């Protein structure tokens, strides 16, 4: 595990990564386990009494089917939020965090190219998201029976979880890119958190205003959930879009990192 920057990064974060994977899956399973409670006439009636705008803002747009409920609660807000936080933290740490801590100098004084360092660090972020996605997927498969989540196949869970991981990668890439380009941790953190919030609003809140519907198409939240992967399976177009944005950000950040001074 100490062979290169990629494996070393994962090795150093093994405990925290495990913690994240378990915590995210546990939260998801807990929410999923509420489905039998939500799926009662009284609860459905209560939900219908909420103003539609509020429900939409919280991604609660369909609570009458297991897929709709999971898409709203589990996959709709809390889990992507946690995944985004994890990805942004890793993306920030990849270059800027190390640089501000003063530990990047030593690494770069070794025969490690900057491109290789940056890409291996981002690859570690990708692997971390994959770990979280797989654990989450397994947790959902395990809870599906007891929680009466009928009608969602393993492939559809996999599709939603894959798009969730790509959604995380997108914000991780933004934090990575800003950090790699500037070497500033606070900027990387702030910019990506800000964009994540804006993207969320662009998906659920702005479109409620007349003439702002178009903002939804620009939001990674929409690319992630808009096609309802839990009902419709993997949305190749959305997945590719998330992947493409991620790739562009990683390439741009790495390119800039190669050309600038490393801060003391």
């Amino acid at each position, binding site marked *: 595990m*100490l*062979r*290169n*920057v990629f494996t*070393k990064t994962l*090795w*150093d974060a093994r405990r925290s990564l495990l913690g994240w994977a378990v915590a995210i899956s546990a939260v998801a399973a807990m929410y999923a386990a509420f489905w039998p409670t939500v799926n009662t006439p009284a609860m459905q009636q209560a939900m219908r009494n909420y103003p539609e705008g509020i429900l939409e803002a919280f991604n609660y747009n369909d609570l009458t089917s297991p897929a709709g409920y999971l898409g709203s609660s589990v996959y709709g807000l809390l889990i992507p939020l946690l995944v985004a936080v994890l990805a942004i933290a890793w993306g920030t740490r990849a270059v800027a965090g190390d640089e501000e*801590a*003063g*530990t990047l*100098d*030593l*690494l*770069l*004084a*070794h*025969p*490690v*190219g900057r491109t290789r360092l940056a890409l291996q660090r981002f690859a570690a972020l990708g692997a971390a998201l994959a770990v979280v996605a797989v654990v989450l997927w397994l947790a959902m498969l395990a809870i599906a029976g007891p929680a009466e989540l009928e009608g969602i196949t393993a492939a559809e869970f996999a599709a939603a979880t894959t798009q969730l991981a790509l959604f995380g990668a997108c914000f991780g890439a933004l934090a990575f890119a800003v950090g790699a380009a500037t070497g500033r941790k606070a900027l990387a953190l702030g910019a990506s958190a800000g964009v994540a919030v804006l993207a969320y609003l662009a998906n659920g809140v702005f479109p409620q205003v007349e003439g702002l519907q178009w903002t939804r198409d620009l939001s990674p939240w929409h690319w992630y959930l808009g096609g309802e992967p839990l009902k419709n399976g993997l949305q190749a177009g959305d997945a590719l879009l998330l992947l493409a944005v991620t790739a562009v950000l990683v390439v741009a950040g790495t390119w800039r990192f190669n050309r600038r*001074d*490393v801060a*003391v």
Partner: protein
Amino acid sequence: MTEPVILTEGLVKHYGRSRGLAGLDLEVRRGEVYGFLGPNGAGKTTTIRLLLDLIRPTAGRATVLGADPRRDGLAVRRRVGYLAGDFVVDGRQTGWELLTFLGNLRGGVPRARIDELAGRLDLDPSRRIRTLSRGNRQKLGVVQAFMHAPELLVLDEPTSGLDPFLQQEFVDMVREARRAGQTTFMSSHVMSEVQQTADRVGIIREGRLVTVERVETLRERAVRKVEIHFDAPVAAQEFAALPGVGDLRVDGTVLRCRLAGRADPLVKVAARHTVVDLLSEEPDLEELFFDYYRNHGEEGSHAA
């Protein structure tokens, strides 16, 4: 003559408000220990970071081991060992994890070699780094810089944080490296850190190399404050005319003066009395520079 190990020509680095470098010409020969001396902020670390391609020059060029640190960075850094004065690494790992990882980045370093160096420095690499004292952390830095027996050692204020015993061990390691044909480029802001090992000393001030001297020459020219305590009052005139002695003040049994160059004449005269105590301050680098400028200026006016 063989190609220099480090060669810089008109190296300039501007950044932000800090001074950086203002045209540095440096030549470090193969096999020598080169002391790179200057006050804090003179540009020592900037120079070293340029040589390692951590930062890029505004103008001028640098060659390390015959190659461009930017274009052939990997090849250059494979043959270099680097130690920063404030050696910082992630404290959650053990020394072993760090040293094995860094060794692997260089294609692997035998465990026996790490053991040998760690034993020599009395370092326990199985401990988590955050539980180590600052001195022990610095030892890890020394081990990683020396463990692959690099052709060129680049050491930035290396002994800060090491206790006197380890400083001596470190001096021995640098001397051994020299005997093994390795080249050492060592920066410092105190003369004593380099004078035990260096063959030549380059003095940098405000981003420019002011002078390069053999270390003996520099030591002879250094000005230090000296204080001698006698058991009985002494007469000032006995010492006033001695070569190198200036600013002489005698208060009863205590003599204070500034001493330039060799201490021999002063010591010989003091030895006629009973010396209770003798204090000699570290030669002040600033004094050294001013001294240099003064002499340099005089030569200039003579020529004109």
